[in-house]
């Protein structure tokens, strides 16, 4: 092989850089688990907690496409018969009244930055 002296160290440096996050965080834990605030007034969400935890973004996408594009109903009922509005801003945030204490808890932990609030209006935070 030509240039063995350059290629092998080069590869080593490359592998080292790519795996940097792994060995940098080695031995440390992932920090305290997020603890999103539960709503006080409502008992039941539109879907199970497990589903909402993993797939709320899918649900929001489905609502959007159904309501905006397909002329779907804006209102629906939870299993216990509570009516809700199929809307992030006017539905979800009715019960989950704080973006900071609910949405941001997990989103910050997982380092995701959804752009919902570039357009949608978050509830006024009680400081």
């Amino acid at each position: 092989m030509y240039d063995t002296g350059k290629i092998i160290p080069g590869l080593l440096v490359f592998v080292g850089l790519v795996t940097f996050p792994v060995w940098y965080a080695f031995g440390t834990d992932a920090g305290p688990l997020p603890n999103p605030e539960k709503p006080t007034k409502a008992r039941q969400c539109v879907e199970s907690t497990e589903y909402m935890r993993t797939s709320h973004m899918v649900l929001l996408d489905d609502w959007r496409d159904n309501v905006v594009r397909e002329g779907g109903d804006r209102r629906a009922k939870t299993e216990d018969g509570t009516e809700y509005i199929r809307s992030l801003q006017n539905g979800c945030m009715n019960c989950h009244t704080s973006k900071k204490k609910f949405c941001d808890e997990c989103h910050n932990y997982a380092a995701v930055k959804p752009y919902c609030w570039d357009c949608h209006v978050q509830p006024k935070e009680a400081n």
Partner: protein
Amino acid sequence: MDNSRRKFLKIAGLSAIAGIGAPTAFNGLLKGEALASAPDLEENVLKGEVGKRYGIVIDVRKFAENKALARRCINVCHSIHNVPDYGLNKDGSKNKKDEIKWLWTDGFENVFPDHSHYKKNADLHEMPILALCNHCDNPPCVRACPTKATFKNPDGIVMMDFHRCIGCRFCMAACPYGARSFNWRSPRELKADGSYKHIKNFNAEFPTRMRGVVEKCNLCAERLAIGKIPACVEEARSANAMVFGDLNDPHSEISEVLNSEFTIQRKPALGTNPSIFYII
């Protein structure tokens, strides 16, 4: 249609599929009837008569009698939809560059440039004429959009999906009515006190937009969904200056008004079939 003629048309249609006429011929075959003889200018209107097709009649005479009314309609529309107002330039002229408008007034010669305004009644030029998205039955903007971010919903409303818009502005070039505005900058710029610089009466129940997407009148789809009529029509109702309803329902109020009054549409020659009608 007799059998041999249908057969002939089917064969003609099939050969046309190989050529440019493919879409038209194909549609005809699917329906079991090819388009015969002369083109029917009203064809699209007829085709639209399945399901709803919402429209508005604007009585310009009433707006001429009540000069403040148009402004009130615009204000209510723009405030409930969080439409930003970029105000004036430094030199005091209107900021036309960033301007965003869903509903506005313009002169007769601007709203109806194809109509002659030679020797027309003198007060015609003073009339403030409301202009908005025409919610065409055959919308060129929907044809142009490369992502279906603008589309026709089941009620005949030409809608925008702001999540999907990539901001290519092809729809703005395609719209023959100048009804579309682009967010050249963020509508959410803040003042020192934390309030929005360009959105005065903020409606917390309706989203704003973000920079880089196109917006326009949505015929108050969010109000129709909860049984209300469009905000501008509600505002103009007391003066009887606007009528809203289903154009496909022959017994709706709007159909009756259209039946009894002479109305015009903007640029009818373009074949877009606007759903907004004007009594001049």
